[in-house]
């Protein structure tokens, strides 16, 4: 599994030994441990060794899962491993004494545990039994897991040891393929040239890269390089800095082809300066607009839930989805979902972003997103706005650069929001997960518009809990530099010219997955540039023309445009004054039709066929937002649809897309082949490893029927990953005879494994 990472090939392991990464050490271990697999019986449980290292909780076994279901393999982790950073809660149980304790760092445990339950950040619930294990060693391992999963200092996060190790090797050389950013075909926005390119790409002529924060001298939470209006000189900016919360002056995010800009900034801390500063900033942004359009400010703190609200919603939705017994939560499922407010918040962010889209696209004005610190809600809204307006960000690299730009570089506090150190409970908030859910909602509504799949989004969120990636380890780029320096100093690591340790970004997916598994990220339906579509039976090519991409208002009658611009719907007003009120008493179901310009704009857009290479506005009716089942329910065995789920359609599409790719490569080879050299250059079967598709066409039996291992959880498996304690101890018969459990024992027995 991790052989690619090993320098020297290991002999086949006979003894149960932990497979360690560079810099990883075993802290404690205990043998004869039973890992629970089925929820309701010990049948199929695995025997092995439980190991706590400074990186993960590892379970090593010779046993194989009784009936293997597909589970995508991670190169950094073994089949049964859980990174310590992924452990949310450590619970020890002693059955005989009827005791249960949630373990924290540096705690004592007064009983010998018979059972260990790990509640994971990725929603898994994993259980180990110590019935046959040495009681003292079991206890020690439990305490070690509790202790090591709550590091006191960021530098104790495994990534430091892992990356640091490479510097002890041959300096400057690539070790274990870790090459941060190198080989990645995407900007990380840590250098001016990448910002320059983005300025050019979006045609933001009146904007420039500013480097006053080089070395983080003016603001620790801002990136070293960012983009500002040309009309603002460095001197001006330095002057304004101190009036903004945490010195976070306005940052340019993106430019609409019509010249309108999307800008984000912190609040102005000095009320006396408020007006003056607002004016200066707005006039500078107006000057950068080719039509000198107005600037509107959108106060996110006022209009959106705060980070504590979001955290509370997330905790509740998790409670409903995975903690509560399946059948019990079934009865009030819909109202429980509603009371969690998670979908309401997802919708609020989508809606707010769509309204900003309307301002940029429909009203041609620039927009400033303002938030107290500009490090949380702004990240979500600015990314969503750009996803809706710019098809570039719907490609895989485009999306990654968006996260890099609006989250990592903009200083989203990943360290605190993820609560990697487990001591920032009040700061913990799943902003990034919320963003991914919003993205999923758009994908769900426009499945051909994105180059990547929901599996990609899920895997991306899981990567937050593998603490080796620069992306999710820090609160801001400056913190990465500072911690790198400290760590290097304390460990005598020669850094040379480098400013920070070379943590790989999560975007280097080869760190975690084989090229074959990375194909799971590719959406076979993606309509990218030059993709074909069929209209009325004829094949056409998509061309991204300026016309259909930009303003949808161009073709509108000027009267309507005025209505939109005025912010008054005169038609609605007159209507209101005439017919409807008089009819109202009679028409119990007729409400006054007062359509806001925004609503009209959306409705107008919806009434035309969607151009996937143009603006995309999600449908915002509450009935059209769904629970992201793969993310929330993938580990829940009862919710897993055997041989079903969206993946069965994906399978079919993937095969067809693969076939199309093969034909295209065949065509290319034919065109490359000169008639004289046919013998050698005749296309043979195209190299399958070049295919972007996970499921290949024409491969043996798979060609038409759905593989047995597919389920709605694919490419994850609930087997052994969701052992809720509550079900245990309930006699199987009672479980089955419950009025609302439908499948027979036979089927359940087959499905449970």
């Amino acid at each position, binding site marked *: 599994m991790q052989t690619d990472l090993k320098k020297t090939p290991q002999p086949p392991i006979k003894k149960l030994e932990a497979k360690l990464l560079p810099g990883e050490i075993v802290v404690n271990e205990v043998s004869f441990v039973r890992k629970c697999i089925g929820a309701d019986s010990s049948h199929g449980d695995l025997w092995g060794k439980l190991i706590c290292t400074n990186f993960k909780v590892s379970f090593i076994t010779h046993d194989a899962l009784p009936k293997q279901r597909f589970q995508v393999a991670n190169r950094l982790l073994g089949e049964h491993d859980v990174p310590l950073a992924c452990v949310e809660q450590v619970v020890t149980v002693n059955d005989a004494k009827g005791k249960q304790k949630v373990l924290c760092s540096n705690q004592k445990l007064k009983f010998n545990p018979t059972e260990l339950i790990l509640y994971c950040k990725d929603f898994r619930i994993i259980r180990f039994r110590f019935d046959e294990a040495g009681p003292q060693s079991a206890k020690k391992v439990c305490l070690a897991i509790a202790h090591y999963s709550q590091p006191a200092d960021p530098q104790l996060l495994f990534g430091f040891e892992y990356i640091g190790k490479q510097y002890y090797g041959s300096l400057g050389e690539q070790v274990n393929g870790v090459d941060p950013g190198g080989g990645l075909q995407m900007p990380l926005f840590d250098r001016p040239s990448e910002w320059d390119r983005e300025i050019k790409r979006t045609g933001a002529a009146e904007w420039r890269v500013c480097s006053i924060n080089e070395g983080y001298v003016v603001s620790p939470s801002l990136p070293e390089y960012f983009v500002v209006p040309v009309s603002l000189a460095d001197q001006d900016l330095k002057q304004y800095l101190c009036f903004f919360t945490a010195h976070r002056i306005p940052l340019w995010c993106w430019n609409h082809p019509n010249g309108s800009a999307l800008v984000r900034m912190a609040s102005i801390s000095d009320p006396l300066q408020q007006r003056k500063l607002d004016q200066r900033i707005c006039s500078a942004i107006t000057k950068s607009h080719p039509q000198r359009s107005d600037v509107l400010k959108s106060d996110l703190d006022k209009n959106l839930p705060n980070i504590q609200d979001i955290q509370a919603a997330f905790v509740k939705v998790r409670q409903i989805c995975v903690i509560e017994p399946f059948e019990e939560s079934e009865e009030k499922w*819909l109202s429980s979902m509603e009371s969690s407010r998670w979908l309401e918040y997802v919708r609020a962010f989508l809606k707010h972003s769509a309204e900003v889209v309307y301002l940029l696209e429909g009203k041609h004005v620039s927009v400033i997103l303002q938030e107290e610190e500009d490090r949380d809600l702004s990240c979500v809204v600015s990314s969503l706005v750009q996803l809706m307006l710019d098809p570039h960000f719907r490609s895989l690299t485009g999306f990654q650069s968006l996260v890099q730009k609006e989250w990592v570089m903009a200083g989203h506090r990943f360290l605190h929001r993820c609560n990697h150190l487990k001591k920032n409970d009040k700061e913990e908030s799943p902003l990034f997960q919320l963003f991914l859910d919003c993205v999923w909602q758009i994908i769900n509504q426009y499945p051909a518009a994105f180059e990547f799949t929901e599996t990609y989004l899920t895997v991306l969120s899981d990567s937050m809990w593998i603490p080796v990636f620069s992306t999710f380890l820090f609160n801001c780029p400056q913190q990465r530099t500072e911690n790198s320096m400290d760590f290097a100093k304390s460990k005598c690591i020669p850094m040379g010219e480098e400013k920070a340790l070379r943590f790989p970004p999560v975007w280097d997916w080869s760190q975690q997955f084989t090229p074959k598994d990375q194909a799971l990220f590719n959406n076979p339906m993606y309509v990218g540039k030059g993709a074909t579509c069929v209209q009325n039976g004829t094949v056409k090519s998509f061309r991204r023309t300026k016309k259909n991409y930009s303003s949808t208002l161009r073709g509108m009658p000027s009267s309507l445009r005025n209505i939109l611009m005025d912010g008054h719907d005169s038609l609605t007003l007159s209507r209101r004054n005439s017919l409807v009120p008089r*009819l109202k008493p009679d028409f119990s179901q007729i409400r006054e039709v007062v359509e806001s310009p925004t609503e009209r704009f959306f409705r107008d857009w919806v*009434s035309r*066929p969607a151009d996937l290479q143009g603006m995309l506005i999600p449908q915002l*009716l509450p009935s059209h937002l769904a629970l992201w089942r793969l993310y929330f329910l993938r580990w829940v065995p009862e919710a897993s649809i055997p041989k079903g789920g*969206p993946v069965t359609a994906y399978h079919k*599409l993937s095969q067809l897309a693969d076939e199309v790719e093969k034909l295209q490569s065949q065509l290319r080879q034919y065109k490359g082949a000169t008639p004289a050299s046919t013998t050698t250059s*005749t296309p043979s079967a195209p190299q399958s490893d070049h295919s972007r598709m996970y499921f290949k066409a024409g491969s043996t039996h798979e060609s038409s029927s759905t593989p047995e291992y597919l389920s709605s959880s694919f490419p994850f498996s609930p087997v052994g990953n969701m052992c809720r304690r509550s079900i245990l101890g309930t006699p199987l018969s009672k479980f089955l005879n419950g009025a609302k459990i439908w*499948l027979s024992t*036979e089927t359940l027995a087959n499905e449970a494994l």
Partner: protein
Amino acid sequence: MVLFLTGHYPIVHVFCNSVDSTSTSRSDRSAHAAKTPYAMSSDNVSTSTEFSPELRVAKDVTYICPYIGALRGTLTVTNYRLFFRCMDREPAFVLDLPLGVVSRVEKIGGASSRGEVSYGLVCKDIRNLRFAHKQMEDSLRKSIFEILMKFAFPVSNGLPIFAFEYGQVYPENGWKVYDAQAEYKRQGIPNESWRITKVNDHYEVCDTYPSNLVVPVNIPDEELKRVAAFRAKGRIPVLSWIHPESQATVTRCSQPMVGVNGKRSKDDEKYLQAIMDANAQSHKLFIFDARPSVNAAANKMKGGGYESEDAYQNAELVFLDIHNIHVMRESLRKLKEVVYPNIEESHWLSNLESTHWLEHIKLILAGALRIADKVESGKTSVVVHCSDGWDRTAQLTSLAMLMLDGHYRTIRGFQVLLEKEWLSFGHRFQLRIGHGDKNHTDADRSPVFLQFIDCVWQITRQFPAAFEFNEYFLVTILDHMYSCLFGTFMCNSEQQRVKEELPKKTVSLWAYINSQLEEFTNPLYVNYSNHVLFPVVSMRHLELWVGYYIRWNPRMRPQEPVHQRYKELLAKRAELQKRVEELQRDVTNRSASSTERAGSPTRSITPVQTFV
């Protein structure tokens, strides 16, 4: 003058497109897409059965759209449809609905001071429509109202339902889609344990059953009659489906006439024993009573009831807790309030929950899943009944068969399933839908069939590649169940259909559907053989069918993007294959000498089987 049709293919096409996801008529905004062939306005139809002397065209009528507001235009009413067109908007706004969907027409308020009068139409397809116009001197309101009352409710007015006048000719006779004998033959019947009896040839044993019935071989016809006496409405247990391997069967019937005194019937007991004996794999029989046990017990007061386990020794009785038609009707009424015209944004999920609609869907699916599971995994035969055995029983047997038998998941197989389990076994469509009947408060009306189609849709969501048909197919079936354009859903039983000579006098919906299968085909369909579907019956997976219940909302974008994209890829593949073949021919021609070459390029690719 707007002309209407029938007998003319393109027009029918247009009209039937009114639910097409790609066309506009799906919602009020529908008419905005220029793509739709609005042949309606073109004068290309000369003769038509649709016209009547009372055809009414009213100018300057206001349609009060709950989404866009008041629209002024022309309203036309024929004996088949209501057609409203507003020319003020670009593109023109068109509302086109068959009068069959109208459940009730009501005058709203009296004439106001301004002389405006209005009336509302409550529709069976979730919509409500409101019109208003100036009070004319010739009292136009009255006449339009009367025309509507007359043609929306032909049955109440002694007029024929429009299906009897619709004269469209299709290449296929849809009435031949279902041949009971052929279907039983497909199932391997008759066999050593089951026979087809002619005892009900003239509907004498049971007038709500079909003429072809499958019963255990060792029960002679005379005994069947005695069993019929013990079953409500004479609906004896008969075979619906048999497992091709285990021989476990799904049989259906009505409740036993047990009554308060716990009456028994030796013949009925023997009969059920025979059903059990016909399956060598199991020594047990499961009786699934669709009702809540309380309701089943209450039925004893009316002479009905359920099988006591004393009387039926090897049978196990299970109640499935599905509520009756009145509860379901009430649930749909609440659902309509929640989804039409607008959705209240703040409490969507709890509002939806309070309608209990999905809960009912869940119970029905769960019941069907238990039946399918018993038959497939338990290899045990099952008997399914409710009270009369024509509502909940039809839902359960047909859904279980859909899970068990891939044939019913094809387009034609599904048609057979409906013809068999619903139409031939006497689901009372006429009563449940109230075709052409103005009595909208009739307690016999209930959305039983709609629930079934909703359940089917839920399964297709969980298994997107397991069905040959698409969502549009299901919507089309529902729309035409109300439209009264086709004879398929007329009457209450096979006997009535024969008597009314429906196959002779009307067109079958399947004739229309099978004439353009492409429209209804799911391109992702994979014909897995012997694949039993076990959907997950959980609120976590059930969802409101927005493509049906919320389709009138103009904020909803109708689309089937996955299917669309698949078709595009198919077209792309075909194009590439053609080009590769051309190039290959070129290469072969030019280098005819190199014949020793192994393998030609095209051979390296095994084309994936396609279903389009």
